């Protein structure tokens, strides 16, 4: 059981994130996590959602997200209005990770947001969450990628055993738009 093409991508609970801003990068301001209104982001637009088991973990940091960051202009050219990276981490970790990966653009075209307790991912189906409790991590999101067009799933697939393959690669998503 799980969601598939033409089903609506869940819009609650709302992910939280800290949009990048130069003020947050200095000591003159504190970051305050705000909600990402997925319903509003989805309406009439094409959005890429990708989930990773953990910010700063090796595969996610070294391969998965850098692949997307290299292709931002290609996503824009294909009409994707936003890329949302989800993980079951807290919003401060996600924001720091985005900066560590090198994304420092106030446009916030790609946002690094939380999937609180992997609740959104669990609505997609059992294979979209990963119980990493035995590793001390708790419940996390699996690695997956989705294309959401006007709120409906047009592509959704997860990776087997959390690895990064062409399934969640930028190229695969770009080919399907």
């Amino acid at each position: 059981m799980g969601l598939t093409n033409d089903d609506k991508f869940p819009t609650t609970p709302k992910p939280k994130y800290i949009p990048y801003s130069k003020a947050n990068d200095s000591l003159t301001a504190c970051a305050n996590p705000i909600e990402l209104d997925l319903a509003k982001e989805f309406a009439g637009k094409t959005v890429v959602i990708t989930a990773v088991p953990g910010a700063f973990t090796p595969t996610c940091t070294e391969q998965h997200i850098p692949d997307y960051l290299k292709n931002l202009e290609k996503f824009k050219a294909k009409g994707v209005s936003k890329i949302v990276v989800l993980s079951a981490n807290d919003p401060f970790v996600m924001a720091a990770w985005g900066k560590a990966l090198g994304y420092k653009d106030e446009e916030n075209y790609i946002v690094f947001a939380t999937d609180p307790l992997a609740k959104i991912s669990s609505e997609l189906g059992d294979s979209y969450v990963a119980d990493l409790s035995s590793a001390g991590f708790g419940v996390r999101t699996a690695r997956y990628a989705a294309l959401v067009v006007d709120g409906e799933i047009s592509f959704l697939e997860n990776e087997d055993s959390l690895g990064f393959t062409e399934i969640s690669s930028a190229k695969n998503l770009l080919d399907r738009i």
Partner: protein
Amino acid sequence: MPYTPDSNVKHLTSLEELNDLISIRDKLTVVDFHAPWCGPCRAFEPVFEEIAEKVPEIQFAKVNIEVAKDIALRYKVASLPTFIYFKNGKKVDISVGVGGNRLFHLIKLNTGLDISTRIVKKMDRNQIE
């Protein structure tokens, strides 16, 4: 609305209170969005108090985003402090962070007043850590 006798800064606790304040015509209202855990906000507090005391031509207010959650949600405040400038019920300007005298600059832009000469206090840098 809470009233602190020695302060000219109004502490807003609801969207209704904010809307009432900014509806006063032709006066600029500067609202400081802050939180108790934010170092830069605490460092700036004495300066903001002095400005409110010495610039009666402008209305000054503060919103603690932990207390007035409806206001924080409405204005999607993602950095603290955030200063939102209102005139005739509408948001006319916004600045984020405490650096660079931006507050003075935007007050001048929106009212023509140069208040920098009235203000003596500087930020307490120890609070920022």
